[in-house]
């Protein structure tokens, strides 16, 4: 009886989601990357494609970490020979680094523009282009109207958009489906092994439509994103008071 009731609730939730505007992705559009515990936060437990995701970063180090995480997601969406369009004003991204996140850098087309107006125009045009895997836009300011326009563009084309806002003046309400903040965490190689390990991030999902926000500590281990398990974390030794 108990299980039956859970089944009913799950079924009802699935029926409600399309009514709330969530469309289920086609098989070849879905994110082909195991996000582990993060997936639990999404509606229907699948990464929402065909929507705009917003990323916020405040420091250059965090911007790099955010780029890394966007790279992972892009790599997951570009598995079937997909193409990514990367639009921004001052691009710092070093394309060879993306290879490490599962992206073929030669399948990214960079559009480097100076004016915000041009960037937004190019973003909208790119998001309207059906069949692109992802569109990444680097623009600090995005008001509600702009985000609404971009959201409307992707609803038609089912393209996934990532908007990276580096040092935004104010974090305003907008029509994006989610808001992420990525900061880097110290890496660990194991007991007493010198050197730098896999990149580790503190991934916080501040906002997600129809989902549950949360924060996770994750590690990108060359091709998979896995949670940091306690025994992997190097716990700093506490200074113990000696007696006697």
């Amino acid at each position: 009886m108990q299980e039956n009731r859970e089944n009913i609730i799950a079924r009802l939730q699935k029926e409600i989601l399309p009514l709330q505007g969530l469309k289920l992705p086609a098989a070849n559009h879905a994110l082909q990357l195991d996000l582990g515990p993060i997936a639990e936060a999404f509606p229907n437990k699948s990464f929402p494609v065909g929507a705009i995701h917003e990323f916020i970063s405040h420091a250059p180090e965090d911007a790099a970490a955010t780029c890394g995480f966007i790279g992972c997601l892009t790599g997951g969406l570009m598995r079937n020979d997909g193409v990514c369009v990367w639009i921004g004003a001052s691009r710092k991204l070093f394309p060879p680094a993306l290879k490490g996140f599962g992206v073929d850098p030669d399948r990214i087309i960079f559009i480097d523009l100076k004016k915000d107006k041009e960037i937004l125009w190019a973003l909208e045009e790119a998001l309207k282009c059906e069949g692109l895997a992802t569109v990444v836009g680097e623009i600090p300011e995005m008001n509600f109207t702009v985000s609404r326009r971009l959201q409307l563009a992707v609803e038609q084309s089912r393209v996934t958009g990532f908007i990276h806002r580096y040092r935004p003046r104010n974090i305003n309400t907008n029509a994006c489906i989610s808001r992420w903040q990525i900061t880097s965490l110290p890496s660990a190689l194991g007991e007493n092994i010198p050197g730098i390990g896999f990149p580790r991030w503190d991934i916080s999902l501040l906002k997600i439509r129809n989902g549950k926000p949360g924060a996770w500590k994750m590690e990108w281990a060359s091709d998979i994103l896995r949670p940091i398990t306690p025994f992997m974390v190097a716990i700093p030794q506490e200074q113990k008071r000696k007696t006697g």
Partner: protein
Amino acid sequence: MSRRFVTIWFRYLKTDWLSRRQPSLLHTPFILAAPHHGRMLITAANIIAEKENIYPGMVVADARAILPGLQVFDDKPGLAAELLKAFAEWCIRFGPLVAVDLPDGLILDSTGCSHLWGGEAAYLTEINKRFYANGYHIRMAMADTIGTAWAVARFGKENRIIEPGGQLHALLSLPPEALRLEAGVIERLHKLGLRQVKQFITMPRSALHRRFGEHTILRIDQATGMKEEWIQPVHVVVPYQERLPCLEPIVTATGIEIALQKLLETLCNRLHKEGKGLRQARFICYRVDNKIITIEIGTNRASHHINHLFKLFEEKLSTIEPDLGIELFVLEAPKTEDLSPMQEKIWEGICSLENIRLAELIDRVANKIGATHIHRYLPDEHYWPERSIKQASSLEEKTNTAWRNDKPRPAHLLAAPEYIDVAAPLPDYPPMLFRYKGKLHIIKKADGPERIEREWWIEEGLHRDYYAVEDEEGHRYWIFRSGHYDQEKTHQWFIHGFFA
């Protein structure tokens, strides 16, 4: 198919031009003069002056003696060529191939054009009427060869239109000047009493060749149609070109859009049938006031997609000023390429680099903002970080070099390495701490060094020892020391990037 040529002779080219600019001159005798060996020689005289027996080639002083009230203007060198070129461009409405025939004529290749005006007579009348309305006195003729048309326009008495095949007959009664011979040859012919073409055209060719040279034979052959003569048109006709003349001049934006749409449809259908696509297209508007407006687009990949091309033009349509109206639209594709047939995908999948929609997106951005803003990178065989990528020239370009993944490379690379203060305990060890933009970073973990030599065959300089370091907050940096460790030198350390 026999070809038809029209030659137009501007009887009073420069003076007509001047009277058009200064209408007060219409009823007064005037001449144009230019200095020649220290005297002023007449280069052009208008009709009224000619009636008073004032001809080009006379000295101005003599002409003044004949007619004291004669007005004299300075002749501008190159004026005739300038005017004729403008006329030739204007005459493109009567036929696609128009050539300038210096010093005072135009040649039109009107093969297959005259029926559009309802026959050859109506065609010539129309041309004549248009020029006369603008105040230019012209004489013209139509024939199978340029030589005959030229001769009849200048020396013919009655019939302007020479029937196909009637060249020889038309030439017989004309003077030798009509054959465009050299001045010396003409003089010799006159001396010999050969004042009409029929007197010498039947002579044996060997005799003509011996006495008057090869050029004479060539000119006779060109006039009779034995030898082909070529003209150099002012505008070379593009093989892929569509024209749309308008009954009424078009002044509205909607009208221009409809014209463009129609032209695109015909051109694209033709390209589609031939399995080609255009890489470059030009939309030319001929305005009523003789101005020509051109807008151009380019595409990344050969395309004959009407909607896409229309969108590319649409961005620029607003720059067209119709003013009093546009009477002729021309769409041409100077650059076309074979289009490999695309397989229509049954399912709508994720598009790859070969996809047409991506190419169209790139075209739109390139046309609106500029192709220089679009980049795609390929790996290059260099270890030096700044040179390890190169820009791809097209969407399809591929290399055999693979992307390297064996050494750590930062997600963000600074445009130029920035100087940092460090404290390094030992040579060839990573630093203990560094200061970047006023903030102190204490290094907890480090990897390296990775020495990258500067490529001496490209540029001189010091090598770099790269370290990947992580500070106590977990931020990861890519820093390097330039050159070998040196106690005296302080400014050695740089930050070059941020790891994810």
